[in-house]
């Protein structure tokens, strides 16, 4: 058995889909962020995989992942700051309570 590209891609996709599922279902905003991390991570894995399997002569995918990790860190940090900000004002991190503005 050869471990071809698709053998890695599917777990990575499942990871992404888990992220989607978690993002849509979890009430806790931090849990949503965790799900987001899963998605981003799946993307990173994809890049790396494509790079290594399809274009082994170069490093674009890998470097994208490298920068993506940094970006993910920045995003997370900022998002957590905002979550804490809102937690201060309404004392909850339940996302379903945050729908004052709608329609």
């Amino acid at each position: 058995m050869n471990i071809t590209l698709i053998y890695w891609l599917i777990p990575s996709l499942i990871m992404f889909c888990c992220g989607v599922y978690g993002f849509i279902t979890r009430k806790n905003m931090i849990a949503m962020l965790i799900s987001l991390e899963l998605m981003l991570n799946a993307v990173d894995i994809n890049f790396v995989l494509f790079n290594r399997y399809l274009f082994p002569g170069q490093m674009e995918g890998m470097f994208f992942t490298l920068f993506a990790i940094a970006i993910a860190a920045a995003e997370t940090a900022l998002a957590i700051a905002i979550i804490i900000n809102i937690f201060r004002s309404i004392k909850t991190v339940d996302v379903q309570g945050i729908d004052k503005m709608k329609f």
Partner: protein
Amino acid sequence: MDYSQFLAMKQEIGLLIVFLLVFLYDTFMPRSAGKQLPVFASVLMLIFTAACCFCPCLAGSESAFAGMYETSAVIAAIKNILNIGVVIVLIQSVKWANSEEMAPRRGEFYELLLVTLFGMYLMISARHFLLFVIGLESASLPLAAMVALDKNRYESSEAAIKYILTAVFSSAVFMMGLSFVYALSGSLYFQNIYLALTGQHSTMLVLALAFVISGVGFKLSLVPFHLWTADVYQGAPTSVTSYLSVISKGAAAFAFLVILCQAFGAVYANIWEWMLYALIILTITVGNLFAIRQRNMKRFLAFSSVSQAGYIMLGVIAFNAMGLAALMYYILVYIFSNLAAFGVIGAIENATGKVSMDDYRGLSKTNPRLSLCMMLAMFSLAGIPPFAGFFSKFFIFTGAINQGSVAIYVLVLIALINTIISLYYYLLVVKAMYIAEEAPVVETFKSSCGERIGLWITIAGIIGLGIVSCVYNFLLDTTATSAINAYFM
């Protein structure tokens, strides 16, 4: 390693210098001088803008970092357009920035704003998806912080959380799409992608395109990626909203065009052409349908801006130099029109705290000048001549139809029919101000100097940009000779 290539990025460097000056001023000047920061930043930005606009050496066509970065007369022009918008936003926000509760965050507002502008610059100039993503994130993440700046209002925080969550989600999906693109083409340079994709058509490519479009469409608030827009516009401080609605959107629109033609131009026909048709129709229609029922002015303008984004997209789908010129012109006009509207909203909000359309009843009796500005803005947004909005709409339609297919006629017809709906809701504002017979809600007040200057500029733009033809002529001349034409069919 040729570090002199950084010198190609003249505008970015200039902007960073402005940023640095503001940052230094904010950090090292005594607290008492903080009051002067808004004026300082505005003037600085104004100088920078003027320099960019009138210094021809900045408009050269250059490519740096092995094609990762590109600038040209067209790109310089769109950056200048954004600069102008930012100057107006800054002037209009002087009073708000000087308010008591903004005092501890005054400097940050300007710093974040300049960084996002820098991000937009990168989006526009990037010819590599990594740089583009960084630009995109720089243009959206700090915005979340800006949205949350108004700490006294809960809505501001709610808007920020909605914004950041959807933005991150969107960027994940966007990067997923990019990974597909990478898999298909083996590179993230636009030109390589263009070459590699020529002749390709696979499900993966479509999916990749859909994800990429959704990522940029999120910034542009195309339906169905627009849902954050209304809440964020409503919740954010008015100055931030106005910035978000025009500058961010304008940059994204131009970047969108660049991506679609320079990276994916080879698969225009049959693939993203039709996807964009669908998106445009949806965007214009849904935006309009939502806008009809809005009573909160900022929310109302949010949906109006959604539908405007659809019109802007007509310039993309035109896929020709005329469309590009029309798109840039549309952005310029849209900046003026929308900022005029937000200028009035901001002035009234700052003076009375009222943002509901119902509060605008009888405004013409108490504040005739503000009402007049608002009316002109509405007319311009609705595309009524002789205001600039009419010209921009006309040219964007003309540019789109230049594409020539029958489908585009149908699309433009649908867009045109939608202008009726949009006219309806714009007239609702006019009606509230001029026709409603109830007693006025808003008392007569005197708007601040900055607000007035801002309105004067925007009104001058609304009236002048169309009638004075040289702006559009310049843009069309510039685009017609631009290198980007090679990508159009």
